[in-house]
């Protein structure tokens, strides 16, 4: 039903029934349709990963087509929070770059003939990258390889027979969408008879600690890293025939579990194959690789 006449400036009342084809007041213009059948938010993916799978299409769909909707916005809040913030003032975000980790609620808002219509809320989780994502990144592998090279270089026989581990945190800056590393932390110098370790500090705080869902980005600690050491000059200091296991220790696994991160350990490839170990006197420069600790596949998504 056309209530007030339909020209370019007058509108139907919000309660008018849909009659898009109705002509009235002698004009040739159709009445506006002010009663939507349905307003919904289309979310292309409900599970995203920072940096590696962060793009998602969002669209507010108004049915039927032809309903006079305007003043769109797409909003987000943490599932654990109550405050909405605006992601977009458009009906459609062809590419929403998810840059904040968390479990979120999304909704669309459309104004139809002066009345706001909110869509049902959609769940979206933005998770941290997994071990394979992190160790597959070229910037990360470059940084870790450099740390390994430095660890090997520091293992000397003379003038002092010594070696030490080093470690740092792998961080993801979602503003630049690039990985970074924290300052290097060193273990103590170790004599050839002694075991080595590094007292890597507790997981560095995120910056900001709890970012707003609409923030432009944040920096997260997503993995620990530390190197193990060479056996090149240890043979005389340990029992004949002794070998050293490769990969993370039980203590490494425990620490990464506590810190809720995947742990990356740089160590030699076992030799011989199938032994799970390397001999004493294993030459520096031998094949090495990254190992995953038994901590976590990825850091837990915040609520």
């Amino acid at each position: 039903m056309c209530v007030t006449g339909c020209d370019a400036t007058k509108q139907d009342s919000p309660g008018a029934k849909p009659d898009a084809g109705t002509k009235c007041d002698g004009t040739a213009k159709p009445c506006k349709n002010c009663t939507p059948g349905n307003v919904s938010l289309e979310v292309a993916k409900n599970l995203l990963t920072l940096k590696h799978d962060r793009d998602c299409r969002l669209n507010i769909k108004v049915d039927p087509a032809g309903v006079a909707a305007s003043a769109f916005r797409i909003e987000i809040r943490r599932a654990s929070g109550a405050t909405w913030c605006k992601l977009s003032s458009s009906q459609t975000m062809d590419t929403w770059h998810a840059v904040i980790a968390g479990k979120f609620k999304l909704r669309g808002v459309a104004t139809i003939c002066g009345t706001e219509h909110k869509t049902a809320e959609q769940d979206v989780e933005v998770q941290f990258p997994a071990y394979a994502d992190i160790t597959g990144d070229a910037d990360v592998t470059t940084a870790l390889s450099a740390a390994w090279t430095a660890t090997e270089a520091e293992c000397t026989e003379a003038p002092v027979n010594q070696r030490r581990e080093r470690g740092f945190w792998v961080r993801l800056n979602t503003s630049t969408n690039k990985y970074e590393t924290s300052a290097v932390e060193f273990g103590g110098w170790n004599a050839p008879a002694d075991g080595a370790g590094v007292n890597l500090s507790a997981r560095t705080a995120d910056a900001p600690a709890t970012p707003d869902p609409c923030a432009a980005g944040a920096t997260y600690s997503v993995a620990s890293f530390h190197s193990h050491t060479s056996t090149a000059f240890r043979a005389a200091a340990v029992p004949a025939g002794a070998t050293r296991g490769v990969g993370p220790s039980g203590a490494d696994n425990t620490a990464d579990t506590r810190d809720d991160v995947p742990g990356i350990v740089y160590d030699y490839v076992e030799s011989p194959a199938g032994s799970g170990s390397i001999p004493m006197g294993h030459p520096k420069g031998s094949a090495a690789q990254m190992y995953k600790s038994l901590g976590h596949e990825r850091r837990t998504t915040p609520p």
Partner: protein
Amino acid sequence: MITAGQALMIALAASVQQLGQQPAGNAFVELRDAIYWVSLIPATSAAPGAPKSGEAVLVKVDHDTGDAAAPGVAADGRRPERSPDVSSISIAAAYDHAIAALRGFDNYDKQARLSVVLRNDHYEVTFPPIVTAPVSRGIDYAYQVWVDAASGGIVKILVPS
């Protein structure tokens, strides 16, 4: 002040009635408040007074005097892996072989946690590291000696990174 290894031998001697002579199985020695708590879990329950499945004979040994309290029983699920139907060298023998393998290289904490664990085909005798400064990512042991459960031969000696 006795060592964890001495406490193990004292506990084995004190529990002959429960475990018989030269039992095979698992042993864990931990120092708490100047007392060694020695848990002994036999591979078989043939001896009279042997603990039931899921239990261990627990012997408390004074750290300073070596005096052993009367053995008790405590819940403990750390069962040996090796089938009880297959004969094995004893806990004491495995420990002795490991100590012999380390002769001249005793760079470990003799008062800290010691374990003798019977796997399917070998014992793992694990000696704790000397901890000068705690580290978050470090080593699990100073030495771990694998001893063949049948012959007593040394299978391997592991040292940490």
